């Protein structure tokens, strides 16, 4: 099974989506990256085929611009499973990623015989994981338009705070369980209803933490706390 992990955050570095995909990636320890020349990665998950044709590999892509290049499009078209991880922007899909999805719709739809499954993990700044529902629904609608098979969507509230916790920490339990489920569904090509998780800390603490964070950051930038409320 050939899997593409697609980071849809526009941030070049340090995105929560990258951490989420890294955490998912660790749940497929036997799968290797395919070499650039398409040759076998000798991960042996498929047995002894070293032709590179079995495609039992897992590759990572980063869509940070509103276009996808032709090589990436061709590689993605050869995958069995696409896994998107992206931030919630204004209750929906970030605009640059929306452009990429539209481009993929045009490219993939004519290849109608292709059985391709799609999974998505959306993380947001607000506490409630459920606020990611509309973005997941849009991904599901995209699948229907593009004639791909929808698998499972996971909505993560307070994404930054959850992704930053070390994997074995007790506060990471809900996150880890949701990621285990996601990895299982992907491995078995299964479908399931959207799942949503909130941070393991109470909402009031998360809210205060947020306020403190913005105050710290604006001061680091040499501005005053009151500048947070500036009006133009």
């Amino acid at each position: 099974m050939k899997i593409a992990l697609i980071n849809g955050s526009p941030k070049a570095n340090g995105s929560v989506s990258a951490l989420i995909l890294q955490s998912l990636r660790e749940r497929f320890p036997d799968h290797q990256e395919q070499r650039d020349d398409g040759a076998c990665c000798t991960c042996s998950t498929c047995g002894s085929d070293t032709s590179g044709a079995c495609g039992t590999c897992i590759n990572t892509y980063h869509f940070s611009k509103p276009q996808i290049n032709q090589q990436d499009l061709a590689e993605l078209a050869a995958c069995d499973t696409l896994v998107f991880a992206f931030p919630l922007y204004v209750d929906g899909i970030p605009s640059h990623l929306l452009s990429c999805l539209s481009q993929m719709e045009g490219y993939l739809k004519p290849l109608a015989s292709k059985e391709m499954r799609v999974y998505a993990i959306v993380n947001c700044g607000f506490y409630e994981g459920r606020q990611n529902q509309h973005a997941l629904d849009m991904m599901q609608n995209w699948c229907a338009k593009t004639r791909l098979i929808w698998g499972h969507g996971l909505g993560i509230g307070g994404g930054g705070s959850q992704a930053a916790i070390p994997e074995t920490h007790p506060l990471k339990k809900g996150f880890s369980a949701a990621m285990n489920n996601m990895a299982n569904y992907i491995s078995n090509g299964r479908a399931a209803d959207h799942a949503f998780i909130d941070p393991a800390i109470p909402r009031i603490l998360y809210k205060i933490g947020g306020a403190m964070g913005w105050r710290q950051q604006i001061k680091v930038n040499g501005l005053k706390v009151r500048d947070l409320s500036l009006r133009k």
Partner: protein
Amino acid sequence: MKLLIHDLEESQAKALLPASASTDNTIVISDDGTIRNCVGCFGCWIKTPAACVIRDNYGDLGETLAKCDDELVIISECFYGGFSPFVKNVMDRAISYVHPDFVIRNKEMHHKRRYRNHFDLTVWFYGADISENEKATALELVQANADNFDCTVRKVGFIKDISEIEELIK
């Protein structure tokens, strides 16, 4: 002040939108082909508060939203139950309209207001084959947007052909 955000080409907009769409009391935001996408830096909250750090023609959208104290009308092709890439780009680039601090509104977390203006939201989605699922998503999405803008939904409509808009927004 009214605000109109649309993704129509210039010739279409000229033909279909009423002349009042570009008078003194309506600001129109349309696609001049140069908009850049949000890079998620939060600079509009903590580096140059209330303005986007990207200084293209769309760098002051938060301030523009703040001038709207009547109706915000959005005309957008429907993409998967949401807005088109251009309209979505405008929304993404406009988050300085709100303050970074959190508040609890309707039992959910949202942002505090930065400005005091209030507007009603009307959205026209167009597209030849908008599915029932897409319509259901779009209705929920617009309500969620309204919760975040702290505004009221006046109307959400779906039209098959953009030419129908002429009758609808006279």
